[in-house]
């Protein structure tokens, strides 16, 4: 019953420009998420110590996962029946879940690392690192 009701209210053929717009938004969201994930991956490899890597992972992971999942949710919408709305809502539920839990788990890992005597990079370590990089560059 709900199916027929929803499709009667929101009847629109699949190939109309409105659908194209929705799918294009979904695809571009996915691609932007991929670009942010590239930033995360490079940051995780390049940054000097655990805490700075956590910055890359904690932030990039949240946004890129959210964007990709939302994009997929939009791409998968093909009609306005109740089932596809519920599917979109479920995917948005995962997005909300990740939005809440990823900062928390990055905080928890950071706290655990700090209490386990893993010290953050000090000023001297950084200077040493810079010197080494400059030397390798001049070679």
């Amino acid at each position, binding site marked *: 019953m709900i199916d027929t009701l929803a499709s009667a209210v929101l009847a629109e053929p699949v190939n109309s420009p409105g659908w194209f717009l929705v799918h294009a938004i979904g695809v571009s969201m996915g691609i932007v998420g991929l670009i942010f994930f590239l930033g995360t991956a490079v940051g995780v490899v390049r940054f000097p110590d655990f805490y700075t*890597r956590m910055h890359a992972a904690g932030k990039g*992971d949240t946004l890129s996962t959210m964007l990709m*999942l939302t994009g997929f949710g939009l791409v998968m919408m093909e009609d306005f029946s109740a089932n596809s709305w519920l599917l979109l809502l479920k995917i948005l539920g*995962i997005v909300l879940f*990740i939005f809440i839990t990823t900062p928390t788990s990055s905080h928890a890992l950071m706290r*655990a690392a700090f209490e*386990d*005597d*893993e010290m953050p990079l000090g000023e001297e370590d950084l200077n040493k690192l810079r010197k080494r990089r400059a030397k390798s560059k001049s070679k």
Partner: protein
Amino acid sequence: MKEWFAIIMGASLLVLMIPILYRIIVGPTGFDRILCANVIGTKTAVILVIIGTLFDRVDMFVDFAIAYALLNFVGAIVVSRYFNRTVPLQEMEKDKAKPRRRLKA
């Protein structure tokens, strides 16, 4: 078009996981490894949705993705709690020579 989008996204996600895998293998401390495992776990939720798109059973695979995201969070909390673990008293006294570095409240 949907299938091609899914395939390209999944393939590029897998390619981008290689640097993170590198950090898991090399990573100087255990925390780096846990962190990267956590990142891969979050991305697995996305990959499950992609697989669902390819098999045309998204409604089913979304459930897996929810469960995976949930267990990923539980795993991160478990690990972080493990490093604040209970220490036997005798061993703690042995450790007193090496003071724990802490911030004051």
